[in-house]
Structure formats: structure tokens, C-alpha cells
């Protein structure tokens, strides 16, 4: 995490290629967080590099697994995903097929619980209690407690080895600014992994971003990659 030896005095993220970032950070069997709500806000260039790499047996924490053959949908099609943790896999019918064949495990978490579990993972919390899902199929195996007269479920935090996130602009330190509804899960994921790689449209000099507009301060970001693939 953070700057490597030899970069003392110039803290912040390194601008490298997508292939180099994925090659350096991702190993077989790792857990990855991947930003996006469908393809909107998904780091398409980093996912392309992941798909071109030999990495496999991955656990992917993401709201969806792309669309058939697109982005994480292609990662799935290449047989690289062992487990998916998210809220909505219905938009890619190949998820059901891979699960049917016994190649893919799916853990379904309500979207609000998923985003908060990632936030909790990044914030160093041991989890939280939520009323969402009480009494439903998704409550199975979860601790229930009555808090303030309301039944709540314990949700443990989520963390990952590597997060692949998409932002709009970065400065050379790794401060990030997001764009419209492409923000979604990205800011939380940028806090909840050991290594964070951010794909951006543009990198400016430090001081080139309005400090009031920065959503992800640079200490969370390890590598920057310029976007080559866009929606």
C-alpha cells in the first residue's frame, strides 16, 4: 500500500499501464472489488487487462457481473471467476448458467447492505446491524438482534485484496473526482482493498483539482491508469 521505496518525498499513486497494474497487483485466487452499476462506472480498461491476463480463481465483489461477454461478463466467460458477491446478477443470464454448471458460487446481498459492508470494510469496522432483509431468504444464517424495537441482521464487513475503480479525474497524487452516476460503488471500494487501482479519463498536476470536490483523497489510491475504453 502507498508509496514504494525510492519514491520517498513524492507520496501518492503511480501512473502506469493497465497491464502493468493488473500484472503487479492481482494474483490467482485473490478477491477483487470492481466498481460499477452495470457497465456505468465500471473500470473497462482495467477489466480488459484482467481478461487478457492469465489470472484466475477470482472472487469478484461487484454489484453485477457485467453483461454477456462484456466487461466482467467476459471475465466470467473466460472462466476466471470462482465466486461472485453482489446484489443483481439477473442482467447477465450467463451467471445462472455458470452457477448451474457448478463453476460459479454466488452470494447475493441487498444493494444497500453490500455498499455499506464495503464502506465498513474500508472504515475498519466489524460490521453493522441492518433491518434490510429480516425474515427473508437472505437472512438465513445471519445473527438477528432487536435494536430500538426493530429486528436487525448482522452484516460483516467486506474487504478485498485489490480494488479496480473508475473515476473521472485524478491528480498525480491519486486524489479522485467522480462523474455523475458513474460514481456508485467506486468511492467505497477505493477504501476497502489492500491495493487500489483507479482508472481515470485524465491526470492533472497536484493542485489541479478543487480540494472541495475530491471524493477520494490520495492516501487510498496506489496506482492510476488512463482509460482507453469508454461506454
Amino acid at each position: 500500500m502507498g508509496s514504494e521505496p525510492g519514491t520517498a518525498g513524492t507520496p501518492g499513486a503511480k501512473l502506469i499501464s493497465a497491464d502493468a497494474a493488473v500484472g503487479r497487483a492481482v494474483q490467482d485466487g485473490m478477491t477483487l472489488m470492481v466498481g460499477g452499476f452495470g457497465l456505468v462506472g465500471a473500470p473497462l480498461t482495467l477489466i480488459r487487462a484482467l481478461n487478457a491476463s492469465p489470472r484466475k480463481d477470482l472472487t469478484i465483489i461487484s454489484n453485477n457481473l457485467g453483461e454477456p461477454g462484456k466487461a466482467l461478463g467476459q471475465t466470467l466467460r473466460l472462466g476466471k471467476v470462482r465466486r461472485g458477491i453482489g446484489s443483481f446478477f439477473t442482467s447477465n443470464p450467463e451467471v445462472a448458467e455458470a452457477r448451474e454448471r457448478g463453476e460459479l458460487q454466488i452470494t447475493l446481498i441487498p444493494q444497500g447492505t453490500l455498499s455499506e459492508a464495503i464502506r465498513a470494510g474500508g472504515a475498519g469496522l466489524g460490521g453493522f446491524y441492518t433491518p434490510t432483509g429480516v425474515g427473508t431468504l437472505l437472512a438465513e444464517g445471519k445473527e438477528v438482534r432487536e435494536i430500538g424495537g426493530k429486528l436487525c441482521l448482522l452484516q460483516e464487513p467486506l474487504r478485498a485484496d485489490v480494488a479496480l475503480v473508475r473515476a473521472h479525474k485524478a491528480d498525480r497524487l491519486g486524489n479522485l473526482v467522480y462523474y455523475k452516476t458513474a460514481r456508485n460503488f467506486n468511492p467505497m471500494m477505493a477504501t476497502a482493498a489492500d491495493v487500489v487501482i483507479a482508472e481515470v479519463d485524465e491526470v492533472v498536476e497536484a493542485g489541479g483539482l478543487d480540494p472541495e470536490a475530491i471524493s477520494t483523497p490520495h492516501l487510498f489510491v496506489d496506482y492510476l491508469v488512463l482509460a482507453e475504453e469508454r461506454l
Partner: protein
Amino acid sequence: MNEKELIASRAAALLRPGWVVNLGIGIPTMVTRFVDRDSVWFQTENGLLGVGPPPEPDRLDPNLVDAGKRPVTERPGASYFDSATSFAMIRGGHVDAVVLGALQVDERGRVANWAIPGEPVLGVGGAMDLMSGARNVIVVMTHTTKDGSSKLVRECSLPLTSLRPVTWIVTELATFQADGAGLALVECAPGVSPETVRAKTAARYRELVPRGRDGAA
């Protein structure tokens, strides 16, 4: 007006000026056609408060969509936020109403709307969070399934979305209100009699609809 438009228009009439409203996919999205967009703030859980109408084709921005992934615009005063903040709004009781579709509603007002019969259960999205946290839940659905059976049932045979009862159920035949005591018929659609509603409804309910108005012959 077709059946779905009728349902959407009656649901729209339940929204109050100034409310923050989240719309589900399907009939709920049609609600926007029947409300003054300046009187209600639409929130979409993928991170926008102040959803505006669809863009002109030449103004389409692929990074500006609603939760159904349809292109939208931002109205003046709109704000963007991350998913955790969005669901803090929803779970935390800051959203006045959600309008969502359902497969079944039981006579206690509980909804089943996330698991489809005969298909693997692979998507829940924000349905459970919205059901647990929105101040008012408005279910919009056709009164019966394609084979004619009532979607208002005594007991849901499909997996429940939440134990929390909804506030209103709007179908093409009637509007029901749900509370701790169960369901109450509060309005019949134009030209529909309370007898017709009763004949097509499997769930038990109280009748609070004024006779001689609306559908009564």
C-alpha cells in the same frame, strides 16, 4: 389510457408535493408522466437526487442513467452521491415514498417481488432496502396474473421481500390501503364495482370505499 397507464396515474395521485420518491422498474417508471416534475424529487439508488426527463437523443450521456439503466437528465438542484450515501437516504427514512412492482401481496400487506418462479434467485438489487426504509411504500401491479389468478393473496407463496407491510396497493381495479389491521379497499377504478373487486381478489380485506361513488352502478 391503457391498464398500466391507469395504474401509474392513480399511484401518481398519491404523491404529495415536495416528496422525495424512488421509482422501481416497469409500471413505476410510468408514474413520471402523471406528476408535475417540479413538485416531486425523484431519487435513483445508483446515485442521483433530482432525476430529470430523458435527454434529447443528441444530448445522451452514457454515464447518466437511472437504476433501470435508462438515460436520464439532472434537474436544477440535483446532486450526485455514492451508493452507501444513497442507501443511507433509503434505509434511514429520508425517502418519502417508493413506488414498486410486485408479484404478490398478502393480506397483511407484505410483498413478494424479487424472486421469479422457476428461475434461480440471482437478483435482489435495492428492493429489500427500499421496502425496509422508505416512509411510504406504494405497490403498483396488475390485479391478476396472466392466467387470471389474484395477485392479492391470503399468504405469499413466493419469497417475501420484507416483513414490513406496504402503505398502498394500486391495481387497475382498485386502491387498497394497508395497516396493522390488514388491507382496506379505499377506492375503485372508474366503472369498477366493489363486487367486481371482491370477485377478483383472493386476499380478505375491509371495504372502506364510499358506496354510490366511483364504480357503484
